[in-house]
Protein backbone atom coordinates (compact mmCIF):
# COMPACT_ATOMS: atom_id res chain seq x y z
CA UNK A 1 0.00 0.00 0.00
CA UNK A 2 1.17 3.51 -0.77
CA UNK A 3 0.68 5.81 2.18
CA UNK A 4 -0.69 9.20 1.22
CA UNK A 5 -2.36 11.98 3.15
CA UNK A 6 -5.07 14.40 2.14
CA UNK A 7 -5.50 17.73 3.83
CA UNK A 8 -9.03 19.09 3.79
CA UNK A 9 -10.08 22.69 4.10
CA UNK A 10 -12.37 22.39 7.08
CA UNK A 11 -13.47 20.10 9.87
CA UNK A 12 -14.91 16.79 8.84
CA UNK A 13 -18.33 17.32 7.28
CA UNK A 14 -20.58 15.96 4.61
CA UNK A 15 -18.86 18.14 2.04
CA UNK A 16 -15.86 15.85 2.49
CA UNK A 17 -18.05 12.78 2.51
CA UNK A 18 -16.66 11.06 -0.58
CA UNK A 19 -13.17 10.96 0.80
CA UNK A 20 -14.32 9.55 4.12
CA UNK A 21 -16.45 7.08 2.19
CA UNK A 22 -13.42 5.85 0.32
CA UNK A 23 -11.54 5.44 3.58
CA UNK A 24 -14.44 3.79 5.33
CA UNK A 25 -15.48 1.29 2.67
CA UNK A 26 -11.99 0.31 1.61
CA UNK A 27 -12.07 1.91 -1.83
CA UNK A 28 -8.65 3.43 -1.28
CA UNK A 29 -7.25 0.16 -0.09
CA UNK A 30 -8.65 -1.50 -3.17
CA UNK A 31 -6.59 0.98 -5.17
CA UNK A 32 -3.51 0.19 -3.18
CA UNK A 33 -3.58 3.29 -1.02
CA UNK A 34 -3.52 3.91 2.68
CA UNK A 35 -5.03 7.34 3.08
CA UNK A 36 -4.88 9.60 6.10
CA UNK A 37 -7.29 12.50 6.09
CA UNK A 38 -5.89 15.60 7.81
CA UNK A 39 -8.76 17.81 8.91
CA UNK A 40 -8.61 21.48 8.25
CA UNK A 41 -10.14 24.13 10.46
CA UNK A 42 -10.59 27.84 10.89
CA UNK A 43 -6.89 28.59 10.98
CA UNK A 44 -5.37 25.36 9.76
CA UNK A 45 -2.42 25.61 7.43
CA UNK A 46 -2.94 22.55 5.31
CA UNK A 47 -2.00 24.28 2.09
CA UNK A 48 1.32 25.29 3.60
CA UNK A 49 1.78 21.69 4.60
CA UNK A 50 1.21 20.59 1.01
CA UNK A 51 3.74 23.12 -0.23
CA UNK A 52 6.23 21.90 2.35
CA UNK A 53 5.54 18.31 1.39
CA UNK A 54 4.01 17.37 4.72
CA UNK A 55 0.79 16.22 3.08
CA UNK A 56 0.45 14.78 -0.41
CA UNK A 57 -2.88 16.16 -1.50
CA UNK A 58 -4.88 19.16 -0.47
CA UNK A 59 -8.40 20.35 -0.98
CA UNK A 60 -7.58 23.45 -3.02
CA UNK A 61 -9.33 25.88 -5.31
CA UNK A 62 -8.51 27.52 -8.63
CA UNK A 63 -7.65 30.95 -7.23
CA UNK A 64 -5.20 29.46 -4.80
CA UNK A 65 -3.67 27.41 -7.56
CA UNK A 66 -3.30 30.42 -9.81
CA UNK A 67 -1.72 32.32 -6.93
CA UNK A 68 0.75 29.48 -6.67
CA UNK A 69 1.52 29.74 -10.39
CA UNK A 70 2.07 33.44 -9.95
CA UNK A 71 4.53 32.76 -7.14
CA UNK A 72 6.22 29.98 -9.04
CA UNK A 73 5.01 27.31 -6.67
CA UNK A 74 4.44 24.04 -8.50
CA UNK A 75 0.93 23.19 -7.34
CA UNK A 76 -1.46 21.47 -9.68
CA UNK A 77 -5.10 20.54 -9.31
CA UNK A 78 -5.92 17.21 -10.79
CA UNK A 79 -9.62 16.94 -10.04
CA UNK A 80 -12.49 19.15 -8.97
CA UNK A 81 -15.02 17.31 -6.90
CA UNK A 82 -17.41 20.29 -6.80
CA UNK A 83 -18.47 21.80 -10.04
CA UNK A 84 -19.97 24.72 -8.22
CA UNK A 85 -18.50 26.67 -5.39
CA UNK A 86 -20.90 26.22 -2.47
CA UNK A 87 -20.19 29.72 -1.17
CA UNK A 88 -23.38 31.60 -0.52
CA UNK A 89 -24.34 34.97 0.73
CA UNK A 90 -27.10 35.13 3.29
CA UNK A 91 -29.59 37.88 3.97
CA UNK A 92 -32.46 38.37 6.35
CA UNK A 93 -35.71 37.15 4.80
CA UNK A 94 -37.47 40.44 5.47
CA UNK A 95 -34.71 42.82 4.47
CA UNK A 96 -35.95 43.36 0.98
CA UNK A 97 -33.24 41.36 -0.70
CA UNK A 98 -34.75 39.52 -3.60
CA UNK A 99 -31.95 39.24 -6.10
CA UNK A 100 -28.24 38.81 -5.71
CA UNK A 101 -27.74 42.43 -6.75
CA UNK A 102 -29.83 43.61 -3.84
CA UNK A 103 -27.10 42.55 -1.46
CA UNK A 104 -25.30 45.71 -2.50
CA UNK A 105 -27.87 47.64 -0.48
CA UNK A 106 -26.71 46.06 2.78
CA UNK A 107 -24.63 48.14 5.18
CA UNK A 108 -22.43 45.29 6.12
CA UNK A 109 -21.30 42.01 4.67
CA UNK A 110 -19.56 39.70 7.09
CA UNK A 111 -17.03 37.59 5.32
CA UNK A 112 -13.72 35.92 5.73
CA UNK A 113 -10.56 37.38 4.29
CA UNK A 114 -10.58 34.69 1.58
CA UNK A 115 -13.96 35.77 0.40
CA UNK A 116 -12.89 39.37 0.45
CA UNK A 117 -9.92 38.81 -1.78
CA UNK A 118 -11.75 36.53 -4.19
CA UNK A 119 -15.44 36.64 -4.94
CA UNK A 120 -16.03 39.99 -3.34
CA UNK A 121 -13.63 41.43 -5.90
CA UNK A 122 -15.67 39.70 -8.51
CA UNK A 123 -18.88 41.05 -7.07
CA UNK A 124 -17.57 44.59 -6.98
CA UNK A 125 -16.62 44.41 -10.64
CA UNK A 126 -19.73 42.65 -11.91
CA UNK A 127 -22.46 44.27 -9.90
CA UNK A 128 -23.29 47.80 -9.00
CA UNK A 129 -22.97 49.10 -5.50
CA UNK A 130 -20.72 46.69 -3.63
CA UNK A 131 -18.16 48.66 -1.67
CA UNK A 132 -15.13 47.97 0.49
CA UNK A 133 -16.67 49.52 3.54
CA UNK A 134 -19.32 46.84 3.60
CA UNK A 135 -16.72 44.35 4.63
CA UNK A 136 -16.43 43.23 8.22
CA UNK A 137 -14.53 40.17 9.31
CA UNK A 138 -16.50 37.01 9.83
CA UNK A 139 -15.19 35.01 12.76
CA UNK A 140 -17.51 32.10 12.06
CA UNK A 141 -20.06 33.34 14.51
CA UNK A 142 -23.29 34.36 12.76
CA UNK A 143 -24.59 36.35 15.72
CA UNK A 144 -23.63 39.77 14.39
CA UNK A 145 -25.44 38.96 11.15
CA UNK A 146 -28.51 37.76 12.97
CA UNK A 147 -28.51 40.86 15.11
CA UNK A 148 -28.30 43.26 12.21
CA UNK A 149 -31.03 43.24 9.62
CA UNK A 150 -29.07 45.46 7.32
CA UNK A 151 -26.29 42.97 6.98
CA UNK A 152 -25.42 39.97 4.91
CA UNK A 153 -22.87 37.33 5.56
CA UNK A 154 -20.97 34.68 3.76
CA UNK A 155 -21.73 31.07 4.33
CA UNK A 156 -21.34 27.61 3.08
CA UNK A 157 -24.49 26.45 1.36
CA UNK A 158 -24.57 23.36 3.46
CA UNK A 159 -23.79 24.82 6.88
CA UNK A 160 -24.74 28.33 7.94
CA UNK A 161 -28.28 28.37 6.56
CA UNK A 162 -28.99 25.23 8.55
CA UNK A 163 -27.54 26.56 11.79
CA UNK A 164 -29.13 29.96 11.49
CA UNK A 165 -32.52 28.53 10.86
CA UNK A 166 -32.11 26.21 13.78
CA UNK A 167 -30.97 28.90 16.19
CA UNK A 168 -32.74 32.04 15.08
CA UNK A 169 -35.91 30.38 14.00
CA UNK A 170 -36.05 31.87 10.54
CA UNK A 171 -34.55 30.75 7.28
CA UNK A 172 -32.18 33.25 5.74
CA UNK A 173 -32.32 34.06 2.06
CA UNK A 174 -29.61 32.10 0.33
CA UNK A 175 -27.75 33.28 -2.77
CA UNK A 176 -25.32 30.85 -4.32
CA UNK A 177 -22.53 32.88 -5.76
CA UNK A 178 -21.94 30.28 -8.40
CA UNK A 179 -25.49 30.78 -9.64
CA UNK A 180 -24.82 34.49 -9.91
CA UNK A 181 -22.14 33.63 -12.43
CA UNK A 182 -19.09 32.98 -10.35
CA UNK A 183 -17.60 30.02 -12.17
CA UNK A 184 -15.04 28.75 -9.78
CA UNK A 185 -14.26 25.10 -9.28
CA UNK A 186 -14.16 23.96 -5.69
CA UNK A 187 -13.07 21.16 -3.39
CA UNK A 188 -10.32 20.13 -5.76
CA UNK A 189 -7.63 17.59 -5.37
CA UNK A 190 -4.46 19.58 -5.49
CA UNK A 191 -1.00 18.12 -5.46
CA UNK A 192 2.54 19.08 -6.38
CA UNK A 193 4.25 18.83 -9.75
CA UNK A 194 6.81 16.63 -8.11
CA UNK A 195 4.17 14.12 -7.11
CA UNK A 196 2.77 14.03 -10.63
CA UNK A 197 6.21 13.56 -12.09
CA UNK A 198 7.36 10.91 -9.68
CA UNK A 199 4.24 8.95 -8.84
CA UNK A 200 1.65 9.61 -11.50
CA UNK A 201 0.01 6.29 -10.80
CA UNK A 202 -0.49 7.14 -7.15
CA UNK A 203 -2.14 10.37 -8.20
CA UNK A 204 -4.35 8.56 -10.68
CA UNK A 205 -5.34 5.94 -8.16
CA UNK A 206 -6.10 8.54 -5.51
CA UNK A 207 -8.27 10.50 -7.93
CA UNK A 208 -10.10 7.45 -9.14
CA UNK A 209 -10.72 6.07 -5.70
CA UNK A 210 -11.90 9.44 -4.41
CA UNK A 211 -14.36 9.76 -7.28
CA UNK A 212 -15.70 6.33 -6.55
CA UNK A 213 -15.95 7.29 -2.96
CA UNK A 214 -18.07 10.26 -3.90
CA UNK A 215 -20.47 8.24 -5.99
CA UNK A 216 -20.81 5.78 -3.16
CA UNK A 217 -21.28 8.53 -0.65
CA UNK A 218 -23.99 10.26 -2.60
CA UNK A 219 -25.80 7.19 -3.85
CA UNK A 220 -24.74 4.26 -1.73
CA UNK A 221 -24.70 3.39 1.91
CA UNK A 222 -22.84 6.21 3.56
CA UNK A 223 -23.29 5.27 7.19
CA UNK A 224 -19.71 4.19 7.72
CA UNK A 225 -18.42 7.43 6.20
CA UNK A 226 -20.74 9.49 8.36
CA UNK A 227 -19.60 7.66 11.44
CA UNK A 228 -16.03 8.44 10.52
CA UNK A 229 -16.95 12.08 10.03
CA UNK A 230 -18.62 12.18 13.39
CA UNK A 231 -15.59 10.57 14.96
CA UNK A 232 -13.25 13.19 13.54
CA UNK A 233 -15.67 15.95 14.34
CA UNK A 234 -17.84 15.03 17.30
CA UNK A 235 -19.94 18.14 16.83
CA UNK A 236 -21.36 16.87 13.57
CA UNK A 237 -24.99 15.80 13.73
CA UNK A 238 -26.97 13.48 11.52
CA UNK A 239 -29.40 16.28 10.80
CA UNK A 240 -26.64 18.47 9.52
CA UNK A 241 -25.24 15.70 7.36
CA UNK A 242 -28.59 14.93 5.84
CA UNK A 243 -29.20 18.61 5.17
CA UNK A 244 -25.82 18.96 3.52
CA UNK A 245 -26.27 16.00 1.24
CA UNK A 246 -29.70 17.19 0.26
CA UNK A 247 -28.43 20.66 -0.56
CA UNK A 248 -25.46 19.34 -2.51
CA UNK A 249 -27.84 17.37 -4.64
CA UNK A 250 -30.40 20.13 -4.93
CA UNK A 251 -27.92 22.69 -6.18
CA UNK A 252 -25.85 20.27 -8.24
CA UNK A 253 -22.76 21.12 -6.35
CA UNK A 254 -21.00 17.88 -7.18
CA UNK A 255 -22.83 16.89 -10.28
CA UNK A 256 -23.61 19.53 -12.84
CA UNK A 257 -22.14 20.66 -16.10
CA UNK A 258 -19.29 18.50 -17.33
CA UNK A 259 -19.58 16.12 -14.43
CA UNK A 260 -22.93 14.87 -15.62
CA UNK A 261 -21.40 13.29 -18.69
CA UNK A 262 -17.80 12.79 -17.82
CA UNK A 263 -18.07 11.92 -14.19
CA UNK A 264 -17.43 13.58 -10.88
CA UNK A 265 -14.23 15.53 -10.63
CA UNK A 266 -14.10 16.62 -14.22
CA UNK A 267 -12.02 19.64 -15.14
CA UNK A 268 -12.18 21.06 -18.64
CA UNK A 269 -9.97 23.58 -20.31
CA UNK A 270 -12.90 25.67 -21.55
CA UNK A 271 -14.48 25.98 -18.14
CA UNK A 272 -11.20 26.82 -16.52
CA UNK A 273 -10.35 29.39 -19.15
CA UNK A 274 -13.74 30.98 -18.81
CA UNK A 275 -13.22 31.40 -15.12
CA UNK A 276 -9.70 32.67 -15.67
CA UNK A 277 -10.93 35.23 -18.18
CA UNK A 278 -13.55 36.45 -15.80
CA UNK A 279 -10.86 36.93 -13.18
CA UNK A 280 -8.65 38.73 -15.64
CA UNK A 281 -11.55 40.95 -16.57
CA UNK A 282 -11.88 42.17 -12.99
CA UNK A 283 -8.16 42.46 -12.51
CA UNK A 284 -7.75 39.73 -9.94
CA UNK A 285 -5.45 37.78 -12.20
CA UNK A 286 -2.97 39.14 -14.70
CA UNK A 287 -3.81 38.38 -18.32
CA UNK A 288 -0.42 36.93 -19.03
CA UNK A 289 -0.64 34.32 -16.31
CA UNK A 290 0.06 30.83 -17.56
CA UNK A 291 -3.05 29.52 -15.86
CA UNK A 292 -2.76 26.18 -17.56
CA UNK A 293 -0.02 25.34 -15.11
CA UNK A 294 -2.58 25.40 -12.34
CA UNK A 295 -4.44 22.28 -13.30
CA UNK A 296 -4.30 19.12 -15.27
CA UNK A 297 -7.16 17.39 -17.06
CA UNK A 298 -5.12 14.23 -17.49
CA UNK A 299 -6.56 12.39 -14.53
CA UNK A 300 -10.27 13.09 -14.83
CA UNK A 301 -13.28 13.21 -17.13
CA UNK A 302 -12.91 9.54 -17.80
CA UNK A 303 -16.27 8.55 -16.48
CA UNK A 304 -14.75 6.68 -13.61
CA UNK A 305 -17.29 5.35 -11.16
CA UNK A 306 -20.33 6.56 -13.03
CA UNK A 307 -21.58 3.04 -12.92
CA UNK A 308 -21.94 3.33 -9.17
CA UNK A 309 -24.63 5.97 -9.57
CA UNK A 310 -27.96 4.35 -9.05
Amino acid at each position, binding site marked *: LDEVSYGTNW*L*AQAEHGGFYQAVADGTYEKHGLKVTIV*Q*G*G*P*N*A*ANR*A*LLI*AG*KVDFYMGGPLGDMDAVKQGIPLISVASIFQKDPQVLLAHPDAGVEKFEDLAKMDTIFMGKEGYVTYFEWMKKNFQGFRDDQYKPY*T*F*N*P*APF*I*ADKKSAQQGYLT*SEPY*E*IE*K*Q*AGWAPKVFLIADAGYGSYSTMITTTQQMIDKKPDVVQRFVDASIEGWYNYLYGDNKAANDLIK*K*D*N*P*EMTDGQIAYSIAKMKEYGIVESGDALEKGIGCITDERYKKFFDSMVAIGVEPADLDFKKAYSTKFVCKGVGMALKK
Partner: protein
Amino acid sequence: MATTSLEGNPPLAPPKPGFFGRNRDTLLRTLIPVGVVIALILLWQAIITLNSIPQYILPGPLAVANSLYNDWGTLWPALWVTTQITMQALALALIGGVGIAIFLVQSKWIETAFYPITVILQVTPIVAIAPLILIYAPTTQVALLICAFLVAFFPILSNMVQGLKSVDHNLLNLFDLYGASRWQTLLYLKLPSSLPYFMTGLRIGGGLALIAAVVAEFAAGSAGAGSGLAFRLLESQYRLNIPRLFAALILLSMLGVVIFMITSFIAWLGLHRWHESSLKREN
Protein backbone atom coordinates in the same frame (compact mmCIF):
# COMPACT_ATOMS: atom_id res chain seq x y z
CA MET B 1 -6.40 52.05 69.67
CA ALA B 2 -7.46 48.78 71.10
CA THR B 3 -7.89 48.16 74.78
CA THR B 4 -6.78 45.05 76.60
CA SER B 5 -8.59 41.96 75.41
CA LEU B 6 -11.57 40.83 77.44
CA GLU B 7 -10.17 37.44 78.32
CA GLY B 8 -7.51 39.24 80.28
CA ASN B 9 -4.65 37.87 78.26
CA PRO B 10 -1.37 38.94 79.70
CA PRO B 11 0.02 41.69 77.50
CA LEU B 12 3.14 39.64 77.00
CA ALA B 13 1.39 36.77 75.21
CA PRO B 14 2.41 36.35 71.60
CA PRO B 15 -0.05 37.88 69.16
CA LYS B 16 -2.67 35.33 68.30
CA PRO B 17 -5.03 37.15 65.98
CA GLY B 18 -7.73 34.98 67.50
CA PHE B 19 -9.48 32.07 65.90
CA PHE B 20 -12.50 34.15 65.07
CA GLY B 21 -10.41 36.98 63.74
CA ARG B 22 -8.47 34.73 61.44
CA ASN B 23 -11.54 32.88 60.32
CA ARG B 24 -13.31 36.09 59.62
CA ASP B 25 -10.45 37.13 57.42
CA THR B 26 -10.44 33.97 55.34
CA LEU B 27 -14.19 34.08 55.24
CA LEU B 28 -14.23 37.60 53.89
CA ARG B 29 -11.46 36.79 51.48
CA THR B 30 -13.62 34.12 49.88
CA LEU B 31 -17.02 35.67 50.46
CA ILE B 32 -16.25 38.95 48.79
CA PRO B 33 -15.16 37.58 45.42
CA VAL B 34 -18.04 35.12 45.51
CA GLY B 35 -20.38 37.99 46.23
CA VAL B 36 -18.98 39.96 43.36
CA VAL B 37 -19.40 37.01 41.02
CA ILE B 38 -22.99 36.55 42.09
CA ALA B 39 -23.64 40.24 41.59
CA LEU B 40 -22.15 40.02 38.13
CA ILE B 41 -24.32 37.05 37.25
CA LEU B 42 -27.41 38.90 38.40
CA LEU B 43 -26.37 41.91 36.39
CA TRP B 44 -25.86 39.69 33.37
CA GLN B 45 -29.34 38.19 33.76
CA ALA B 46 -30.82 41.63 34.26
CA ILE B 47 -29.23 42.99 31.10
CA ILE B 48 -30.53 40.10 29.11
CA THR B 49 -34.02 40.34 30.50
CA LEU B 50 -34.26 44.11 30.21
CA ASN B 51 -32.98 44.31 26.66
CA SER B 52 -34.55 40.98 25.72
CA ILE B 53 -31.37 39.85 24.08
CA PRO B 54 -31.87 36.60 22.18
CA GLN B 55 -29.94 33.59 23.31
CA TYR B 56 -27.92 33.29 20.11
CA ILE B 57 -26.37 36.67 20.77
CA LEU B 58 -25.85 36.60 24.49
CA PRO B 59 -27.25 33.63 26.38
CA GLY B 60 -28.38 34.01 29.94
CA PRO B 61 -26.59 32.49 32.90
CA LEU B 62 -29.11 29.71 33.12
CA ALA B 63 -28.64 28.59 29.55
CA VAL B 64 -24.92 28.66 30.03
CA ALA B 65 -25.12 26.67 33.24
CA ASN B 66 -27.29 24.21 31.41
CA SER B 67 -24.81 23.85 28.63
CA LEU B 68 -22.01 23.54 31.15
CA TYR B 69 -23.85 20.65 32.68
CA ASN B 70 -25.00 18.95 29.50
CA ASP B 71 -21.82 19.34 27.51
CA TRP B 72 -19.53 18.50 30.39
CA GLY B 73 -18.51 15.36 28.54
CA THR B 74 -17.07 17.43 25.69
CA LEU B 75 -15.91 20.37 27.71
CA TRP B 76 -14.08 18.56 30.46
CA PRO B 77 -11.51 16.80 28.24
CA ALA B 78 -11.04 20.05 26.32
CA LEU B 79 -10.45 21.92 29.57
CA TRP B 80 -7.94 19.34 30.59
CA VAL B 81 -6.06 19.60 27.30
CA THR B 82 -5.97 23.37 27.57
CA THR B 83 -4.80 23.20 31.17
CA GLN B 84 -1.95 20.96 30.18
CA ILE B 85 -0.83 23.17 27.33
CA THR B 86 -1.10 26.21 29.57
CA MET B 87 1.08 24.66 32.22
CA GLN B 88 3.66 23.58 29.70
CA ALA B 89 3.61 27.01 28.08
CA LEU B 90 4.02 28.69 31.44
CA ALA B 91 6.89 26.44 32.39
CA LEU B 92 8.59 27.12 29.08
CA ALA B 93 7.95 30.84 29.36
CA LEU B 94 9.37 30.91 32.88
CA ILE B 95 12.50 29.01 31.97
CA GLY B 96 12.96 30.91 28.75
CA GLY B 97 12.07 34.31 30.13
CA VAL B 98 14.25 34.07 33.20
CA GLY B 99 17.06 32.45 31.27
CA ILE B 100 17.12 35.06 28.53
CA ALA B 101 16.81 37.82 31.12
CA ILE B 102 19.87 36.54 32.93
CA PHE B 103 21.70 36.40 29.63
CA LEU B 104 20.64 39.92 28.69
CA VAL B 105 21.80 41.60 31.88
CA GLN B 106 25.29 40.17 31.60
CA SER B 107 26.45 43.33 29.88
CA LYS B 108 25.06 46.51 28.48
CA TRP B 109 26.20 45.44 25.02
CA ILE B 110 24.45 42.14 25.12
CA GLU B 111 21.33 43.95 26.19
CA THR B 112 21.61 46.52 23.41
CA ALA B 113 22.20 43.81 20.86
CA PHE B 114 19.69 41.18 21.83
CA TYR B 115 16.83 42.82 23.71
CA PRO B 116 15.37 44.12 20.42
CA ILE B 117 15.42 40.60 19.05
CA THR B 118 13.22 39.37 21.85
CA VAL B 119 10.89 42.23 21.00
CA ILE B 120 10.77 40.99 17.43
CA LEU B 121 9.90 37.52 18.65
CA GLN B 122 7.17 38.99 20.76
CA VAL B 123 5.50 41.18 18.17
CA THR B 124 5.58 38.67 15.33
CA PRO B 125 1.97 37.56 14.90
CA ILE B 126 1.71 33.88 15.61
CA VAL B 127 -0.89 33.36 12.97
CA ALA B 128 1.53 34.54 10.31
CA ILE B 129 4.38 32.27 11.24
CA ALA B 130 2.35 29.31 12.40
CA PRO B 131 2.63 27.61 8.99
CA LEU B 132 6.41 27.90 9.14
CA ILE B 133 6.44 26.47 12.63
CA LEU B 134 4.11 23.69 11.58
CA ILE B 135 6.38 22.84 8.70
CA TYR B 136 9.55 22.66 10.71
CA ALA B 137 8.34 21.44 14.08
CA PRO B 138 8.57 17.67 14.36
CA THR B 139 5.11 17.27 15.88
CA THR B 140 2.01 19.39 16.28
CA GLN B 141 2.57 19.33 20.01
CA VAL B 142 5.97 20.94 19.61
CA ALA B 143 4.56 23.51 17.21
CA LEU B 144 1.89 24.33 19.73
CA LEU B 145 4.41 24.84 22.46
CA ILE B 146 6.62 27.04 20.31
CA CYS B 147 3.62 29.24 19.54
CA ALA B 148 2.60 29.36 23.18
CA PHE B 149 6.10 30.20 24.28
CA LEU B 150 6.30 33.06 21.81
CA VAL B 151 3.13 34.54 23.18
CA ALA B 152 3.92 34.21 26.88
CA PHE B 153 7.62 34.72 27.46
CA PHE B 154 8.07 38.45 27.01
CA PRO B 155 6.41 39.85 30.13
CA ILE B 156 8.39 37.47 32.29
CA LEU B 157 11.58 38.35 30.47
CA SER B 158 10.91 42.05 30.70
CA ASN B 159 10.05 42.07 34.37
CA MET B 160 13.01 39.89 35.12
CA VAL B 161 15.41 42.20 33.29
CA GLN B 162 14.11 45.15 35.24
CA GLY B 163 14.34 43.19 38.48
CA LEU B 164 17.87 42.02 37.83
CA LYS B 165 18.91 45.56 37.07
CA SER B 166 17.25 47.02 40.14
CA VAL B 167 19.55 45.33 42.62
CA ASP B 168 20.78 47.62 45.39
CA HIS B 169 24.22 48.85 44.43
CA ASN B 170 25.41 48.69 48.01
CA LEU B 171 24.61 45.01 48.19
CA LEU B 172 26.42 44.50 44.91
CA ASN B 173 29.42 46.19 46.46
CA LEU B 174 29.17 43.87 49.41
CA PHE B 175 29.14 40.80 47.22
CA ASP B 176 32.08 42.08 45.18
CA LEU B 177 33.98 42.70 48.35
CA TYR B 178 33.47 39.19 49.60
CA GLY B 179 34.73 37.88 46.28
CA ALA B 180 31.42 36.32 45.30
CA SER B 181 31.52 34.62 41.93
CA ARG B 182 29.12 35.66 39.19
CA TRP B 183 27.10 32.61 39.87
CA GLN B 184 26.91 33.28 43.59
CA THR B 185 25.94 36.90 43.03
CA LEU B 186 23.20 35.74 40.72
CA LEU B 187 21.94 33.04 43.03
CA TYR B 188 22.15 34.77 46.36
CA LEU B 189 21.66 38.40 45.44
CA LYS B 190 20.21 39.15 42.04
CA LEU B 191 17.56 36.47 41.88
CA PRO B 192 16.15 37.01 45.38
CA SER B 193 16.23 40.73 45.02
CA SER B 194 14.31 40.62 41.76
CA LEU B 195 11.60 38.41 43.23
CA PRO B 196 9.01 41.20 43.38
CA TYR B 197 9.48 41.83 39.68
CA PHE B 198 9.55 38.15 38.91
CA MET B 199 6.29 37.65 40.76
CA THR B 200 4.63 40.34 38.68
CA GLY B 201 5.99 38.66 35.59
CA LEU B 202 4.68 35.35 36.82
CA ARG B 203 1.24 36.80 37.41
CA ILE B 204 1.10 38.26 33.92
CA GLY B 205 2.72 35.17 32.47
CA GLY B 206 0.12 32.90 34.07
CA GLY B 207 -2.71 34.64 32.29
CA LEU B 208 -0.75 35.00 29.13
CA ALA B 209 0.15 31.31 29.08
CA LEU B 210 -3.54 30.56 29.01
CA ILE B 211 -4.04 33.01 26.18
CA ALA B 212 -1.02 31.48 24.52
CA ALA B 213 -2.51 28.02 24.78
CA VAL B 214 -5.69 29.26 23.16
CA VAL B 215 -3.93 31.21 20.43
CA ALA B 216 -1.56 28.37 19.73
CA GLU B 217 -4.42 26.01 19.39
CA PHE B 218 -6.17 28.36 17.01
CA ALA B 219 -3.05 28.67 14.96
CA ALA B 220 -1.42 25.30 15.11
CA GLY B 221 -3.69 22.98 16.97
CA SER B 222 -5.17 19.81 15.74
CA ALA B 223 -8.86 19.38 15.50
CA GLY B 224 -11.10 16.64 16.68
CA ALA B 225 -10.83 14.47 19.71
CA GLY B 226 -7.58 15.76 21.18
CA SER B 227 -8.50 19.41 20.94
CA GLY B 228 -8.75 21.94 23.71
CA LEU B 229 -11.14 24.65 24.71
CA ALA B 230 -10.03 26.96 21.94
CA PHE B 231 -11.23 24.56 19.37
CA ARG B 232 -14.48 23.96 21.22
CA LEU B 233 -14.99 27.68 21.28
CA LEU B 234 -14.63 28.09 17.55
CA GLU B 235 -16.65 25.04 16.93
CA SER B 236 -19.52 26.23 19.11
CA GLN B 237 -19.35 29.57 17.45
CA TYR B 238 -19.54 28.01 14.07
CA ARG B 239 -22.47 25.91 15.18
CA LEU B 240 -24.10 28.97 16.69
CA ASN B 241 -24.21 27.04 19.91
CA ILE B 242 -23.69 30.23 21.82
CA PRO B 243 -24.56 28.88 25.26
CA ARG B 244 -21.85 26.33 24.86
CA LEU B 245 -19.49 29.03 23.59
CA PHE B 246 -20.09 30.89 26.79
CA ALA B 247 -19.74 27.75 28.85
CA ALA B 248 -16.32 27.28 27.30
CA LEU B 249 -15.52 30.94 27.92
CA ILE B 250 -16.48 30.58 31.55
CA LEU B 251 -14.29 27.53 31.92
CA LEU B 252 -11.43 29.48 30.41
CA SER B 253 -12.05 32.38 32.75
CA MET B 254 -12.21 30.08 35.72
CA LEU B 255 -8.99 28.44 34.71
CA GLY B 256 -7.47 31.89 34.38
CA VAL B 257 -8.65 32.93 37.81
CA VAL B 258 -7.40 29.71 39.38
CA ILE B 259 -3.99 30.23 37.79
CA PHE B 260 -4.04 33.81 39.01
CA MET B 261 -4.84 32.71 42.53
CA ILE B 262 -2.06 30.17 42.46
CA THR B 263 0.48 32.65 41.17
CA SER B 264 -0.72 35.22 43.70
CA PHE B 265 -0.26 32.67 46.43
CA ILE B 266 3.24 31.89 45.21
CA ALA B 267 4.00 35.60 45.17
CA TRP B 268 2.72 35.89 48.70
CA LEU B 269 4.84 32.95 49.80
CA GLY B 270 7.96 34.49 48.33
CA LEU B 271 7.41 38.04 49.50
CA HIS B 272 5.31 38.19 52.63
CA ARG B 273 8.22 37.96 55.02
CA TRP B 274 10.17 40.85 53.66
CA HIS B 275 8.78 42.87 50.81
CA GLU B 276 6.72 46.01 51.22
CA SER B 277 4.16 44.90 48.68
CA SER B 278 3.04 41.94 50.78
CA LEU B 279 3.61 43.33 54.25
CA LYS B 280 1.04 44.91 56.44
CA ARG B 281 2.08 48.38 57.47
CA GLU B 282 2.67 48.24 61.18
CA ASN B 283 3.89 51.70 61.96
